[in-house]
């Protein structure tokens, strides 16, 4: 049997949205399998594994990101309703949020400022280009919100999404070690820090470790997204009109 019909079948399938969508879910399932097999080791992050597998597969097949995204957009689209749905845990936790308003507001302001200033400051000191700096600014905010903010700051939305996802993976992978080194044992504080610094990917990690940590991570993730989406573009507008 000749390889020609098989090759034609591959060319046909690779060009349909079905391929991109299937590849995304299969790669994520493989990433999840590795994560579960290592006893949910933070360094075996399923998003990291899935992204690496997909990039390798697309590079090997010579498929463009645009073709891949024709299928993957169906998964990507769900980020919108997922952001809207953050209102549900936020409303559920509202009583304890009001009771802990001082620690929550303090940690939110301090963490958000540190994440923004240290990232942009370090990259600027090391000679990054303006477009990279503007795309780095919202990196601790969840990818769909970071893309929106980068657009308002005239950065590159797709690059901002990559930085946000990388930050999420780093935070989920390293959070345990940083928090242990800082001797923070309060699950609420641990979760809040993960959600603030590493948004949805950190929140997913927190939910897998402890339910209290998960709830506070979701809270920090939602609050940080909301506050950053409003304050970052206003701050940028103020900086530019002042200079």
């Amino acid at each position, binding site marked *: 049997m000749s390889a020609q019909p098989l090759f034609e079948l591959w060319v046909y399938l690779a060009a349909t949205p079905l391929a991109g969508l299937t590849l995304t879910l299969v*790669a*994520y399932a493989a990433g999840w399998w590795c994560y579960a097999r290592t006893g949910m080791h933070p360094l075996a992050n399923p*998003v990291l594994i899935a*992204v690496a597998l997909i*990039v390798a597969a*697309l590079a090997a097949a010579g498929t463009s*990101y645009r073709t*891949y*995204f024709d299928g*993957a957009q169906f998964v*990507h689209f*769900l980020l*919108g*309703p*997922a*952001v*809207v749905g*953050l*209102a*549900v845990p*936020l409303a*559920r936790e509202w009583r304890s949020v009001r009771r802990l308003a001082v*620690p929550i507001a303090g*940690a939110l302001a301090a*963490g958000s400022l*540190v*994440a923004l200033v*240290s990232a942009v400051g*370090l*990259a600027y*000191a090391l000679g*990054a280009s303006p477009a990279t700096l503007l795309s780095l600014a919202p*990196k*601790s905010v969840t990818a*769909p*919100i970071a*893309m929106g*903010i980068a657009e308002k700051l005239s950065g*590159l939305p*797709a*690059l901002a999404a*990559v930085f*946000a996802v*990388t930050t999420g993976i*780093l935070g989920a992978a390293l*959070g345990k070690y*940083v*928090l242990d*080194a*800082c001797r923070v044992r309060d699950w*609420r*504080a641990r979760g*809040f*820090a993960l959600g*603030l610094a590493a948004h949805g990917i950190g*929140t*997913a990690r927190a939910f897998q470790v402890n339910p209290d940590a998960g709830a506070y991570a979701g809270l920090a993730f939602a609050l940080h997204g*909301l506050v950053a*989406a409003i304050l970052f573009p206003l701050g940028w*507008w103020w900086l530019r009109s002042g200079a």
Partner: protein
Amino acid sequence: MSPLVAGFTWLLLFQCAGEAVVQLAGLPVPGPVAGMALLFAALLVRGHAPSALDVAADGLAKHLSLLFVPAGVGVMLHVARVADEWVPIVVALLVSTVLAIAVTAYVFQHLAQRHESRDPGAES
């Protein structure tokens, strides 16, 4: 109707409302964020979330990390920029993520301890 479908419909309706508000008022906020704020306000007025919304929102939250995979693969589009500027990018992402986690957790724990020692009956 299944609670998953009903809940998902509510999420999409609030996302549409958020997009509409942002477009009409010219707000500098992404549509889903405005939708989240609207849903949050509605839930506070109502007092609690209908169980269908709980099902849909928790279902999406559980698989949240999957939803970031397509955006992460977008690194393919920016290989040249990342290769050119990899030192500032890696240092900035690594250091600022570690710092943000440490500072946030420390401030939260410190303020919560002070808050709860002043008001010991608060924890229930």
